[in-house]
């Protein structure tokens, strides 16, 4: 029903699993990043897969689920801390059907499924966002915040505003799937 969202075919790389990644996005350390499939990385986004945990072996730094959207100009950076004198980065795990609005900075530790993050948000280090939560536009979530399931957060610092309706999961799922089908290439 909604009109398609066009992108220029030359700009995006489509993977076998349907991920669409802009050539204008900065993907650092791609070997440490997992995309679940049908996930869109918009232009200008920065994903820091290079900030990995010190130590030998392979390490997943950032994992995104299916039907996610990393908006334009977003920065995805794994959280870090100095624990017992050792500085380290910690992995960031993001579930399915997660949309992150344009120009948001995300340093969360865990983001559940069906989460909506608005535009121009700052999600502080080690934030835990549970399933079906929603962060309104321009929200500043301070470090170590826990955002419970089905809650709307807004403001600076981000505060609980209200409970979301029971059908949020279905709504977000339909919306993210629809967004992926609307996101269509345009030959030029």
């Amino acid at each position, binding site marked *: *029903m909604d009109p398609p969202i*066009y992108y220029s075919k030359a700009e995006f790389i489509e993977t076998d699993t349907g991920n669409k990644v802009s050539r204008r996005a900065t993907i650092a350390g791609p070997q440490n990043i997992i995309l679940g499939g049908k996930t869109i990385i918009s232009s*200008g986004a920065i994903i820091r897969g290079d900030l990995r945990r010190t130590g030998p072996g392979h390490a997943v730094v950032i994992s995104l689920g299916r039907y996610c959207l990393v908006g334009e100009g977003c920065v995805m950076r794994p959280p870090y801390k100095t624990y017992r004198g050792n500085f380290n980065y910690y992995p960031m795990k993001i579930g399915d059907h997660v949309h992150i609005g344009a120009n948001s900075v995300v340093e969360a530790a865990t983001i559940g499924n069906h989460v909506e993050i608005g535009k121009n948000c700052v999600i502080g280090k080690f934030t835990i966002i549970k399933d079906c939560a929603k962060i309104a536009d321009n929200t500043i979530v*301070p470090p170590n*915040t826990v955002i419970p399931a*089905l809650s709307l957060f807004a403001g600076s610092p981000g*505060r609980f505003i209200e409970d979301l309706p*029971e059908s*949020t999961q279905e709504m977000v799922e339909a919306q993210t799937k629809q967004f992926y089908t609307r996101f269509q290439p345009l030959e030029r």
Partner: protein
Amino acid sequence: MLKRSEDEDGPGRGPHDLRDASTCQDVLSLSISSTAGYPVGGTEMAPSVQYHCACLSSSPAPPPPHLPSSSSSFHPLHTLFFCEECDAVRCNRCVAVEVSTYYCPNCLFEVPSASVRAEKNRCARNCFMCPNCRNTLSVVPSDPPENSDGRLTVPISAVGEPPFFLYCNHCRWDSAEVGITFEKPTGLAAQLQKFEDSAPDSLEFDRLKEHFEPFIPAASAALARDIPGVSKYNPSQGDEMTEYRSRVDIATASRMGTGGGDADVEYMRHLETVSEVASLNQRWTSSWATSFQARDLKPLRIPLHSKRSKRCPACTHILIKPEQKAQSVRYKIKLVAANYLPAITVTLPHAQQAQAEAARRSLGKSTAAAPEDDRGGSGVGMHAGKTYPFHLALTNPLYDPIQVRLSVQRMHVSTATTTSADGSATEKARRPPFAVSLPTSSFPIAAFAEAWEYEDDEDMFGVDDDEVGAGRGGREKDGRGKVKTVGVLEKRANVTVVGGEVVIGKEARGAVKFNMLVSYTYRSDDPAPSEGNDGSPTKSTKPPEIKTFAFYTVVDLGLIIPREDVRLDSES
């Protein structure tokens, strides 16, 4: 399964409206006062459809949409519930709510309801809220690790040297400022609750509670009198109430904070920054007159949240029952209206075209900036004195095909007479702002299914006849031979798109907003479709039962751009 078991007349039902459908176009003029309609709903630019819940009104028909108060009767579809027993729509305003689980929103611990009262509805673990900015506080040691570059690090771990204190990551408030420090980083709530419990206000409260304790059974019986199984309040048992003597004299209590009266004035005189005074928001959760100095604010234990189950107000059947686990988003029972009523979305083709054009043009540019351009775009708004088509897409959530009929709500005779009575002169001078045409013949929507089989359904309902009828009707009304705008436009899977048309008057202003009655019929030939084995013989013997359900919606197409604005646009 998504089938209705019986067909009663619910409150959301308008049985008389089915007879209104005539064979040709149903054109209705709606009068709308420009002053009332203008600012309401203007915040949202996109056209919308909201559903009516009849809980606020005595009649099944919704209030006229131009009244600002009507917005409280209409809700987005996804927030509504559906009671199968009553066969009616329920909203958050009318359902009965009960708590099923308590949990802390920070540590996500599920608190047993027995300890909720003892812990005063707040988290009794290590969760605290900043009294200054309401952020969560972290426990930090008094020796923050030195950073090599000399910048202030955000202390996050509770490992280190005592004394420990609470620190806010956001506003940098810390509990050492108000003299609260801890010897060990665990069990802080218990340590703080000791302070809380020895405060004069909570001691007074405990005393009051003790005093009223004997009367509580009687009082709670009175409160619970509507609940079946609980005996009625008998006022004869507890009328002799002894006089209460307060612990603290009221005169001394008023001087509890900084000292009250003159002391407060004195303090205000020597104020250097506004932030020294605690804002009302920071103080009003305390039950007692507290100091208004910001430096006296104490860390707050985090109030608990709850998961709630919801019941139908009429028959007390459960509509929503969440899973016990606090962070689960699944439900044991979830009767939401979206599974019963067709979902309706409305679009304005001319606005959509303009938007698509803008999107093509701005391709490569940031789409984040694009929506701002659309607002001022001349193609998006609706100008006075023009005619616009609109599309309604209806999605069938049922496993049965349905026949839908749309009609614009007629104005009540009573409201019509009152408007002519109080302002006949002005009403006559102004023509009705807009007229809406909708297809009047009913149209089918195919069943919701995992594997789509809609060819059969089309044959069953004789779709072609309907389409021709609706199309002809549209042309008759318009008097021109152009593309059909009113009628069934498209059918795919369980979605049917129908077109409507709105004619906006020359002097019109305000919002194009009208109430629409949606009635649909569905076959419920099998009362228990999930139990298939025994169902088939009964199904063959019984004739298919046709049931009808009707509900009201309000369609908001957006604001009309008045004539003056048009001229301004063309000049600039």
